[in-house]
């Protein structure tokens, strides 16, 4: 009996059919927006003449009519319904794209609300459920938007509209407002990379042309990131938003406003903690370096931030951190370097002795970087004592021969830099270890005493030992 009880596997763990799986949607190749209720009725649009076939004065009127027609949205998950009308809308959209690119004088004041309305009707929709729990963007194929044949043309049209020479932000700002931007930003969560790419361009244009919306856009991106970091860890468009921010940061005026510094420290740095960092790390590191090139005094808070969030268990992320740190060191000013060298090299020393050879290797590559080498050399009296113990130890016991070889090179470099200090450290290595051990023992004893005390107090307060 008892044997069976101990050997039988825990049902919860082995059973692959926990209820939770109910909530995960099955992986589909394409998806449609979550807006269609079974409509049933076929959609009818009355075909209109081509714009080029009517006299110029009538064109603006016809343009508006076409825009209104294109507000009709089709269900692309049903591949058989409304085939003719879908094709008609596609060709109309194509015609509109060409029209805004080449025509002159079409952009009447009445056209603005109609354009924004058409774009809104088509692109703004609730994104369908995603398999965020299982979806691994590096492994899995992204789910593609089913209505892309129309959607792409709508985006294309909108971008041409924003870029058109006749486009006047002063009129458009009545329609492209905060609410519009907010909805646009939500779409960045789309799983379809093609859509996110278009959105990136659209947002970039809007940021460029509507000065009044800039602060709002930055604030909303802040909110998206904060939610991503602290609440959901899920948002598909982080890389795209960071890419836009990269060029926004580039344009910041000096001295940097407090708002921007806060963004760096409270939003960009915490973004490093997210599990899916690899998906947007390149863009994030770019933003960070942009900031530091603008204002070198930010180096210290940035590096301290990275050290605070240094990965504890994920070696892959550790390698990314080391890469980013090297990018930062590439642009660091010697005066800034001195301020953070101690905590920084304590961490590097830990990385160098990591049992994961890729981490150790990435850290040891710093010694191939000439600029970093020159910084180390200038400050060898501080850095060498920090690094020495770990280097000495792993030169003897790291499992990976390539690492051992690299460590030898580093030790050799140190020896050449500062041979007196090097010899001193070698000589005192053993006694230092012993001192550490002794300290460790003292700690243990202290805690033992404290615990005895707690026990005694506990007994006393229970009334067992009278006070």
């Amino acid at each position, binding site marked *: 009996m008892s044997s069976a009880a101990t*050997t039988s596997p825990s049902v919860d763990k082995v059973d692959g059919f926990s209820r939770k799986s109910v909530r995960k949607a099955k992986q589909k190749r394409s998806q449609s927006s979550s807006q269609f209720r079974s409509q049933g009725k076929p959609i009818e649009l009355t075909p209109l003449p081509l714009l080029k076939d009517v006299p110029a004065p009538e064109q603006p009127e016809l343009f508006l009519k076409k825009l209104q027609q294109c507000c009709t949205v089709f269900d692309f998950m049903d591949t058989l319904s409304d085939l003719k009308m879908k094709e008609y809308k596609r060709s109309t959209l194509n015609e509109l794209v060409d029209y805004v690119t080449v025509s002159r004088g079409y952009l009447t004041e009445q056209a603005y609300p109609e354009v924004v309305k058409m774009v809104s009707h088509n692109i703004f929709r609730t994104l369908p459920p995603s398999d965020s729990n299982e979806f691994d963007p590096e492994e899995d194929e992204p789910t593609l938007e089913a209505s892309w044949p129309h959607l792409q043309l709508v985006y294309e049209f909108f971008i041409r509209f924003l870029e058109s020479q006749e486009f006047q932000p002063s009129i458009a700002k009545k329609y492209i407002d905060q609410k519009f931007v907010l909805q646009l930003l939500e779409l960045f969560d789309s799983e379809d990379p093609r859509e996110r790419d278009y959105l990136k361009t659209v947002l970039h244009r809007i940021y460029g042309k509507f000065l009044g919306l800039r602060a709002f856009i930055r604030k909303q991106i802040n909110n998206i990131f904060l939610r991503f970091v602290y609440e959901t860890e899920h948002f598909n468009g982080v890389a795209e938003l960071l890419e836009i921010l990269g060029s926004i940061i580039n344009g910041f005026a000096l001295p940097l406003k407090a708002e921007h510094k806060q963004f760096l420290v409270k939003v960009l740095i915490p973004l490093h903690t997210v599990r899916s960092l690899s998906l947007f790390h390149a863009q994030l590191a770019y933003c960070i370096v942009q900031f530091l090139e603008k204002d070198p005094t930010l180096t210290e808070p940035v590096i301290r931030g990275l050290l605070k969030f240094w990965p504890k268990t994920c070696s892959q992320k550790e390698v990314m951190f080391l890469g980013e740190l090297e990018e930062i060191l590439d642009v660091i000013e010697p005066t800034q370097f001195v301020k953070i060298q101690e905590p920084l090299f304590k961490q590097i020393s830990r990385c160098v002795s990591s049992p994961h050879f890729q981490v150790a290797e990435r850290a040891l590559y710093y010694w191939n970087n000439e600029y970093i080498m020159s910084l180390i050399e200038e400050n060898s009296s501080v850095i060498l004592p920090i690094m020495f113990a770990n280097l000495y130890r792993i030169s003897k016991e790291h499992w990976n021969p390539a690492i051992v070889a690299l460590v030898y090179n580093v030790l050799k470099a140190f020896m050449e830099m500062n041979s007196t200090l090097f010899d001193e450290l070698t000589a005192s290595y053993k006694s230092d270890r012993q001192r550490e051990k002794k300290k460790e023992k003292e700690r243990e004893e202290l805690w033992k005493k404290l615990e005895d005390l707690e026990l005694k107090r506990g007994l006393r307060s229970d009334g067992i030992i009278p006070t």
Partner: protein
Amino acid sequence: MAGADGDDSLYPIAVLIDELRNEDVQLRLNSIKKLSTIALALGVERTRTELLPFLTDTIYDEDEVLLALAEQLGNFTMLVGGPEYVHCLLPPLESLATVEETVVRDKAVESLRKISQEHSPVDLEVHFEPLVKRLASGDWFTSRTSACGLFSVCYPRVSSTVKAEIRQHFRTLCSDDTPMVRRAAASKLGEFAKVLELDYVKSDIISLFTALASDEQDSVRLLAVEACVSIATLLPQEDLETLVMPTLRQAAEDKSWRVRYMVADKFSELQKAVGPEITKNDLVPAFQNLLKDCEAEVRAAAANKVKEFCENLPEDNREQIIMTHILPCVKELVSDTNQHVKSALASVIMGLSTILGKENTIEHLLPLFLAQLKDECPEVRLNIISNLDCVNEVIGIRQLSQSLLPAIVELAEDAKWRVRLAIIEYMPLLAGQLGVEFFDEKLNTLCMAWLIDHVYAIREAATCNLMKLVEKFGAEWAQNTIVPKVLGMANDPNYLHRMTTLFCINALSEVCGQEITTKQMLPVVVKMASDQVANVRFNVAKSLQKIGPVLDNNALQTQVKPVLEQLKADSDMDVKYFAQEALTVLALA
């Protein structure tokens, strides 16, 4: 420090603080986790005057350390000198409540809520409430978010002027311009409503509820659905229609599937909160819509609630509502395109039979059960099988057995071992429902076949299954049907199968009793002691240890002991080890 008294002076604060500042995070974390020990060593006064100021000043550390600190401080009341001094804990917790990392902040709020109860009403107004106000008007969103969780703990115990201030602060946070704070406020709305006077619920909470439920962000709107349950419970029936229902109706048809999902997920609670009349008029059609929703997520959530919803319908016309409104939707879900929807339904659908009674079950539900038993997705079939007991009570399982058998056989041979494992776990249940004859005739072979499955987990589960079957059907049945087959495997050329014999014996000896164990099993085990494979031999030693307690002393001395002695002299190290262990445990050494 000079004035330290008694044995406290043994522990200068500097040493202790050094521990809290240790360079190694792990050591720092250990020290923080034992903060109470340090406080004890310092005594209450020095904890208040030296330790707490140190902690308050040095709050910049790894989040993990901060989390431990936030937790510790919640249990510190006695260590600072009891409720009289509990307010000393507020400054460090206030800083922790403004930290970015959510888990730290939440823990700080939890501790603050805990110690709020230990404040006297006066201290609450003098120390605690000002802290809440400071947090509520903090610059960065984190402190405002934390404030949301503190209103409800101080509201009931403060004067009416302060109450008015608290309500005002809560109102402000509900329309905060960052969605993070609005989400925090929305998630505490129900809790706050519960401590408010009914008049204020009507005048304040309802307008906040309505505003949050139509927020521009769906992540805020869906939290309002949760609050809806608490609010509806607080209001008298006659006010529900005007104050709550318009918002609830709107949520059930929200354009975001997340909000609709939330409504579906909370449906039973909502149903109880609004009462039978509104359920009949409003919730039934809403539920139908959710069952037909365009998103599978929403349908699955609603399908999960089918049984509970039906159970809680007012009894006078429950059957009629189910038959005319719910069942047609359920029928459609049986052939849904999404397997998660079908399997959610399959996990509750059997429960409808008790509500609808024998005739309706046979006429309307049985075809659905049968269809689901043939579903292409194994999870659906499994969910039906796992709930057979509900149907058995109403119509008897015989009605189903024709379809049941092929379904079971197919699952039993499924290519995925997890599926096989799941069905094995239902075998004892099925055996109980179907009876011994049916079992012997149809299922026994399957149970034996699992013993030689190529996946260990299945063989192990099969062994355990046999034991449960013997518990159900008795030792005599075991002797006639399974024991001979199990023992026969002892001669199998595959050593894994021979070991399975031993594992089965381990599991079965106790339920089969002394006689069968001594006369039939023991000789086989003894014989296997000279197996060529060392793994079999040391499992013989383990088995002997296991079945020893079932045997009488004579068998132990004359049969078990000599074998174990022989194994103790084995050339294999593990065999020796387990033989020695068995000798010791059985006290034969």
